[in-house]
């Protein structure tokens, strides 16, 4: 737990120092996104995220743009037979963008994962099984993502993207709980 807090602090400090040196493009102040968030692809889910550039570098107009972003997201998925999962992630992203064409984005971060389990029973001291309300498990997570993003010339403020997100949640069963998501959706720039 202490290591996790230390990691989160480092991420926040790093994000803060990058923010201070940000050379934000006037045309891109950040974005929000909504996406299909498929746990192992087929367990359906939905994810919302906010994205803010903290450093943008472009050697000349029309050239490759390299940027750092902070990204916060909240997603949920449904494993129909066993549980519902809620993932709250904070990540640092690096994006390489070919203007008006597409970009590649990779990132890492940390967050929180909560599961909700149906019909959980626990025996009380009298030996009677009682239903546990809102039962589930809390986990800390480390996460990584890799994705592509494509631009639409007709709608410059809207892009579609496809990400693979993976998380390691712990502690779980004396080991860790793996999560992998296919995230596919639209990102909308703030005007």
């Amino acid at each position: 737990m202490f290591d996790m807090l230390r990691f989160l602090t480092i991420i926040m400090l790093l994000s803060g120092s990058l923010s201070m040196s940000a050379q934000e493009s006037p045309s891109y102040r950040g974005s929000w996104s909504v996406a299909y968030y498929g746990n192992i692809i087929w367990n359906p889910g939905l994810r919302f995220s906010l994205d803010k550039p903290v450093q943008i570098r472009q050697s000349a107009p029309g050239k490759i743009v390299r940027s750092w972003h902070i990204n916060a997201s909240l997603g949920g998925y449904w494993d129909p037979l066993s549980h519902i999962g809620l993932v709250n992630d904070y990540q640092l992203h690096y994006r390489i963008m070919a203007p008006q064409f597409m970009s590649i984005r990779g990132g890492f971060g940390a967050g929180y994962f909560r599961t909700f389990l149906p019909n959980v029973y626990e025996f009380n001291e009298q030996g009677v099984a009682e239903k546990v309300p809102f039962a589930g498990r809390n986990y800390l997570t480390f996460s990584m993502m890799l994705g592509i993003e494509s631009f639409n010339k007709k709608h410059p403020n809207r892009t579609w993207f496809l990400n693979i997100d993976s998380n390691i949640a712990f502690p779980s069963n004396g080991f860790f709980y793996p999560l992998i998501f296919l995230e596919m959706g639209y990102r909308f720039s703030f005007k």
Partner: protein
Amino acid sequence: MPAAFRLLIFALILGVSACQSHDPENLEEVIYLRKDGADMPAYIYGNATSKTFILVLHGGPGGSGLGYRLGTYSDLLEEQFAVVYWDQRGQGMSQGQYNSSDLMIQTITEDLAELCLLIHQEYGPDIRLFLMGHSWGGTLGTAFLVQEENQLLVDGWIDIAGAHDFPELFRTQVPLVDSIADEQISLGNDAVFWNQVKTGIGEFQEDLSAGNDLIFLNQKANEAETYLRNRGYTDPISDKDQNKVFTSNYFANNPLVVSTNGLHTSLVLNDELIKTSLTDQLASIKVPSLILWGAYDLVVPSKLGEDAFELIGTEDKEYIIFSASGHSPMLNEPVLFSGAIIDWIGEH
């Protein structure tokens, strides 16, 4: 927790519940047992009007309950009975927060005792409950039943290729695989393959020293069984059941979670398993017992089945060998297999 958030979570949990069927003739329910830091799902399917439940103890360690919902045999059992596919602690889709040092056979037998009580509480004290354990599930079922107070919780024991004695298993498995390899080589069948099998198992002439050896030896035995199945010694697995094996393992379950849980738990438990011998305690099992084995079982040789049949301490016991099966007769001969169980439960 804000009211709106509670409402959202409640609606989502209701969504999961909506996938379930409470029709007792065609039950589809999931209940979780929470115990000592673990949340373990039990998926219940089938005909509960029979008031007869079969609780499946999956193999491994590292398997999953739904990995045993395998088409023909489970369809036939579910037509007659309610079948409970349980994910044991640290396996399948079980979740939990505990130390690896708590992962012991004894802990899982205690989980099993509470699960039996929970099933009785949820479905009525008048139901009949039969345990059915395969391979490692046979070890677990035996370890559970030799604690005599646990025998009050069940009405019978179905032991499918259960490994109740690992030192004895190794003493019989290595020479058995070796002799089959010799036989195949003398028949001129794929000497290169069988020599590789012989070399692989040749390292294990003595008792195993580490749990990892168990995984390697099982792998060699499974390769040999697959070869025999491809040569027609055992019945092929039907396309329907092959598809069901695939969907059970990759869609009903999350394969990433199941394999991560399974790998960790098997590595922890195997060191205890290789020293586990329950042969001396078999006589304390007094519940009706049905022992089922495949004639070509190279993973848990039928010598262990003969021992179980001879030593289990009840007169009400039956031993059936499936002549065209390997380690998993429910896949090789599903109709005969489920028929044997249905008939036996009918007699009890």
